[in-house]
Structures are given as C-alpha cells and as structure tokens.
C-alpha cells in the first residue's frame, strides 16, 4: 500500500527551482557554520578578539549565525513564494 500526503497537495511547479535554491543557501550556511567550528577547534585565540560593541568574536559570530539563519530563511521563503506564484501563473496560461 503506497501513501499520499496527510492533506491533499496541489501541483508544485517550482519544486526543482526551490530545491536548487535550498541547496545553495544550505551550502552558504554550512560554510559559515563550518568556519565557526574550525575557528573554535584550532584558532580559539581568534575568538577573543573584540569585534563589535566591545564583544568578542565568539559572541558576535555565535549570535550572528543564529540571526543569519532567520534572515536567510525569510529570504528563501520570499523567493520560493515568488517562484511558486510565477510558475503557477505560467502553467495556467
């Protein structure tokens, strides 16, 4: 017995484009996260540098990663919604 989704879903015309965009944004974030891990792992002294409002790189980078995730997520959603609407209009034509 094969399953369908819990709720009936319409056709997603922008599926491929959204997947590609998601992959790109994921890679960008993964590089930034990976850099944070490498600095923490081997260049810990760099995290002591005061870089903003008297705060050190550890605090600024850490908080930055959290804020960036929300900002990138919002941008991703805006672009996805625009793609979905555009491609749905084109498909209906």
């Amino acid at each position, binding site marked *: 017995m094969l*399953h369908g989704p*819990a*709720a009936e879903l319409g056709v997603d015309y922008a599926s491929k484009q959204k*997947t590609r965009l998601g992959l790109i944004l994921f890679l960008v*974030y993964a590089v930034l996260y990976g850099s944070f891990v490498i600095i923490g792992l081997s260049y810990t002294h760099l995290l002591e540098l005061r870089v903003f409002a*008297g705060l050190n790189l550890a*605090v600024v980078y850490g908080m930055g990663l959290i804020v960036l995730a*929300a900002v990138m997520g919002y941008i991703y959603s805006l672009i996805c*919604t625009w793609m979905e609407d555009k491609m749905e209009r084109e498909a209906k034509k």
Partner: protein
Amino acid sequence: MIYDVSIWAILIFLFFVAAVLGLSFYFGAKTKSAASYYAAGGTIHWGVNGVAFAGDYLSAASFLGISGMIAFAGYDGFIYSIGYLAGWVVALFLVAEPLKRLGKFTFTDALDAKFNSRAIKLTASISTLIVSIFYLIPQMVGAGDLVVPLLGLPHWAGVTIVGAIVIYIVATAGMTSTTFVQFIKGALLIIFSTILTIYIINNGLSLKPTEDYHDFATITAVVEDGTVTEIESDHFILKNQVTVEDKTFVLLDDEGFDMWFKLEKDDAGNTYLTEALSIVITADGERLYNGAPRSEERFHQVGHPSRIIHNGEEVESTGPLGPFEFLKVIEDSEIVIFKREIFDYGDDRVYVFYQNPTPGTDIMKPGMMLKVGDDGTFWDKVNFLSLMLALFFGTSALPHILIRYYTVPSQRAARKSTIVAIAAIGFFYILTLYMGLGAMVGGVNDLESSNMSSPLLARSFGIGIFSIVSAIAFATVLGTVSGLIVASSGAIAHDFVDMYLRVQMTDRQKVMAGKLAAFGVGIFAIILGILFKGMNVSFLVGLAFAVAASANLPSILAVIFWDKTTHKGIAASIITGILSSVIIILLSPSMFERYGLHPADAPIPFDNPGIISIPLSFIMVIVVSLLTQKKAT
C-alpha cells in the same frame, strides 16, 4: 534554603496542569480518525504550527540544560544553542518541503513513499522509537529536577507526574491537543524568558548578588613542608588535610560540622584557606551537605563576580546595563566559578566544590567544558567536531519534529511554519546566554544540579516570576514529551503494527492502538527518567541528536536527492546508523562513569558518536544502493 516550597508555585503549577488536561479533554472528544490522531488532520495554521515547533523543540534541554550549562561552563553551553539552531537551516533548506510532499503520518511513511518496503517500515519504526527514547530520557530527568523545588517532592515523583499527565494528553487527543499544548507553552516560554532577561540586565552585576548571599570565609594558614599546621581563626578548628594532585583540601570543624577549605598561595607567598562547599556520601549512604543533612540548609546557592570592571573602572556593582553592555562587563570582569574535585576520605566519598576565580575572557569563549584549541587533546577535538556535526544534522532527523510537517495543509505552510520556528527558537537561544550568565553571577546556582539555574534565577527576582517560570518549565517538558510519545506511538501502532505486520484494523482501532502504544512508551519513559537522575539534560539531548543524525538523515537526504537510492540501501543505512551510534555511546567515557567505572577505561575515547556514525551511515546508503540496483530491461 535552596528548595523552600511556595504555595503560589504550587497553585500556578496546578492551574497549568488543569489547563493542559482541559485542552486535551476538549480535543479528545473530537479525535475519531487516525489522520486526526497522528497529524491533527493536516489542518493546523502555519503560524500556530511554527510556534508549536518552537514549543516542541525548546525542550528541557534548552530551557534547563543549556542555561544551566552556560551558568556552569560559560560560552561552551552557548555552543549548544548555536548548533541546535543551525540544525533548522538543514531542516528548512533541504528537508521541510520534500518531506511534506512524501509523507502521510510519520517519518517512516515519507521514507517508504517511493518503495513500499517492509524493510524500511521495520527499520524506520525502530529508529523512530530509539531516537525518541534517547530524547525522552533527558526530558524526564528535567521533569524530576523541576519538581524538587516547585512542589517539594522527590525526583522520582516529578518523573511519574509528568509521565502520567503526558500519557493522558497523548492518549486522549493525540496530535491536536499536543499541538496546542506546544503552542501555548512555546509562546509562554519565549515571553517569560524575555521578561527574565530584562530582569537580569536591569539588575546588572554586583559583588554581593543577593541580600542573603553567603559570605565565603578566607582564613590565613601556616604551612610547613606542605602541611597546614595552624590557622588564624577563633571559630574553626583544624582537623586534617587531603592532597589531590596539585590541590590541597583542608578539613575544619565548624561548631561540630565538617567543612572543607582549599589551600591557596598568593604571588607574595602568603598561604590561606578559601571556603569550599562539599557533599559527603558516608559509608552507610547518608549524604551530608557541608557536614549536615540537606534540611539543615548549610549548602549555599553560589555564583558571584570576584572583580567587576565597568567602563574601565573596578566597581562593587554596575546598576542597570544594556544588552551588549551586560555581556561586555562579564567579559571584562572576573567571575568565581566553582570547580569540582572528588576524593575518598576514610570510608566517605567527598565531592568538594572549590572557588576558582576565572577571567571573563575565558568564560566568553569555548574551552571551560569543551576542551579545544591548545588545551585540547586530539580526542577532545574529535569530540567537539562530532558534537557540532550531530547538532547541525540532528534537528532535521528527529522524528517528533518531522511529524509536525504533516499537521499543516501545504508545502508552503510547512516552509512558513519552519521560518516562524527558526525566528522564535533563535530568539530564545540568544536569551539562553543571558539567563545562563545571569545565573552564573546571580548567586543562585545549586552545585548539585546544573539543570535548575534558570528557575532558581527566577526565584531570586520574586516568588511570582519563579512560580510562573517553573510552571512553564514543567509545561516545557509536557509539550516535548507529548510530541515524543506521539512519534513513538506512531512508530509502534502505525508503522510497525499497521504497515509492517499488516494487522487489519478499522480507523477507530488504529487510534486505539496508538493510544495503547502511547501508554506503554509513557511507562517506559518514567522508568528511564528515574534511572538517569543527575545527568545534564542538554548533554543527553546531544547524544539523541547524534543517534537521529546517524540513523535517519542519510536516508532522508538519499530519498530526496538521489534517484539511485534503493530500499535495501535505506534499511542498511538506518541499521548502521543506529548500531554504530548506540555502540559508541555505550562504550564512551561518560557512560563508563554512569556504570560506576573509571571514564579513562572506556574503549572509545570520546562521547559523541556523530563523526563516525554519520559518515558511516551515508557510505552505507550509497554503497548498498549501488550494489542493489535493478538491472535495466
């Protein structure tokens, strides 16, 4: 005095529990179908689902564990916040929409959507169960920790109360009531954590953080050939001393009570004793806190700055600070962290917590708990890397989080709810830094339990906010445990009994099977919560993330992104991920300590398995899939 019971705390707690049970009863009457029980009928609004995601995800590990870890180990605790949140990026960009497209009720449905394979149904349901149980343990431990100060009950009672309430919530209305419990709890948690943070930065730092903060004694000592021969005190009487590696602890008599001090030497060569706290477990099992039973209230709450630097000057207190300024003052100042040493004294086991003034610059960077940089060995660094990997890839592989994608009506709603979740969770995680550091300098920490820092900090601001924060923390556990039990009952009743064993059931019987499974998992969770008392809940959740990332994520990504994936590849990957991660955890230093053995004897020299088990599981899905391709006809 740490755990006086408050009637207000009890009343507000009872109000919360009554509200939660009422909600469950209301929705329970409406839950008749399997779609309603497991996925709330796919009708939840994305905004509600987003906050419910936060309520589901911000578990005891986040509110109690991370804040406590920051309170005891500074920035190292915040690293968990960063990793937990980063995991949502993987969920949003790679997993959310495709999984919504594929699934029906459970994570197993999504993996199996293209294959209809019994092997996938079996392995994925087992994986869901194991990950959920790993995640359940810290929630139940946290529940037990909370009930001690809130209701004055023992740890096991807290675990049992949570278990009973959650079984009722899940068994009555499944995902619908669970969603609204999580929504309310998520919203309240963020609102009151914000209020708590405002209190913290408004109070600033003070050398004497609370009016009744204990005044730690310092006594001049005469030392000859490494032995303390005399002390300058009319009050204390010198009894004995113990040297552990390079540290000397001195036992003094304080009007009939045994008190431990640490021998110190300043730059000028003067020797003196600084007061420590101690827990002594006697040969007959009695626990003595600073030489007396806990009820004597000789075991103090701790955490204070030893030097405060504000605007370049040394001050006794700062007064209200701005959000960035608060962090900067801590970075510039010196904070007394209490370190632990364990040794045997006669037939007694002694845990001494001694004062260790630590520069703020060391507190506000990694290294106090996670050994990295020049201080870390090769295996310490492997452990750090492994933890960061598990946190990053774990979120999008947690079955109780994934099932939340099936409660919304569309892929767009799944995406939007994830963004609401990221914003809410990210904001909360920034607050954990303030709550943890606030507890570190606020004179509230209970050295016996790092999990209680936030509620105890709230109590220092007044019994009202303590009562509400404690009740929310309890609701936090309820919300997350409910989600976990829904996921577990889905794995047993839907994935295993219905789909794998193919037991013929009506829709009503499927709901009944889910409720019976919820009851069984709930009882099991209660037992585990009692057995694992005392471990930091965030550390335990870190392990759950590693198991999830190893067992589930490689197969999820393979199904979504790789056309050559086969059902055998998925099953092999899940089995490999579960076995490798669980075996590494069971043979790790932390578990050896849990078994009562010496951590150094553990055959695996690090705690977090992700660095081995995640790649291994990825390799397995690729290799087995390539070896089991159907030949083209």
